[in-house]
């Protein structure tokens, strides 16, 4: 069931609200940016993500196909969300679970994770994923 969460980067400049269903799977990916940043997103629809503050403090980083937009805070470097513009479900927001407020350690440790093979540009699980 969708629930509205608030979240922020580390320094607090960027804040957001996101409507997420944390009973659905979360994601880990092995691509070059996700492996460096250990990005752990839950998925929000475009109308389920609202940036509250810090738009002017976000840097957008793109590479390779440039279809996915990776945003991070200019001050602390934390990436509260990314935007997938051409995914199987259309445009979507990947919201950083590590930035959410009010989610208990117990709840975090119980979240389901789907592993995707971004390194090979595939959504299927890679052969090796336990390190993700």
């Amino acid at each position: 069931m969708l629930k509205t969460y608030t979240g922020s980067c580390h320094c607090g400049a960027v804040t957001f609200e996101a409507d997420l269903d944390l009973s659905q799977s979360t994601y880990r990916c092995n691509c070059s940016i996700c492996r460096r940043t250990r990005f752990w997103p839950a998925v929000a629809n475009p109308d389920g993500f609202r940036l509250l503050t810090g738009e002017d403090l976000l840097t957008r980083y793109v590479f390779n196909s440039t279809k996915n937009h990776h945003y991070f805070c200019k001050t602390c470097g934390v990436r509260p969300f990314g935007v997938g513009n051409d995914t199987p479900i259309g445009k979507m927001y990947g919201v950083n679970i590590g930035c959410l407020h009010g989610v208990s350690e117990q709840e975090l440790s119980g979240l389901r994770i789907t592993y995707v093979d971004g390194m090979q540009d595939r959504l299927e699980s890679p052969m090796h994923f336990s390190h993700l």
Partner: protein
Amino acid sequence: MAGIVHEGSCHCRAIGFRYHAAHDPGSWSVRACQCSFCRTHAAATTSDPQASLEFEAERPSLLNKYRFARRTADFLVCGQCGVYIGAMIQAARGRFGIINVHALSPIPAEVATPVAIEYGAESLEQRIARREQRWSPVIGTGI
């Protein structure tokens, strides 16, 4: 392998490091610090007082030194791609640093599994003393 240099960088390669390891990656102390910064960056860091560490900035204007809480160390973050590569402290005995294992390229296959660790109860003096003892001496003048 002891004596091996492990290179790492942010995603866009604007900033990076060369970690002169003293021990095999399987025996490294890899820490998943539970502070708010390390958790929001999902970082796993390592250091070894017998190793040494060179930071380098291919594009110095993109280096972001982030400080927070007690403001004792510079957390090195790329201004272009946002990746956290490591941290450095200027202490009385010199400069000491850690690297984010996830910024290594390649990440050694046998690298030790991160261990969750909590430093929140330290005093300021204990924190600086720990870093002087356990972090790696920073060499060079790159950053």
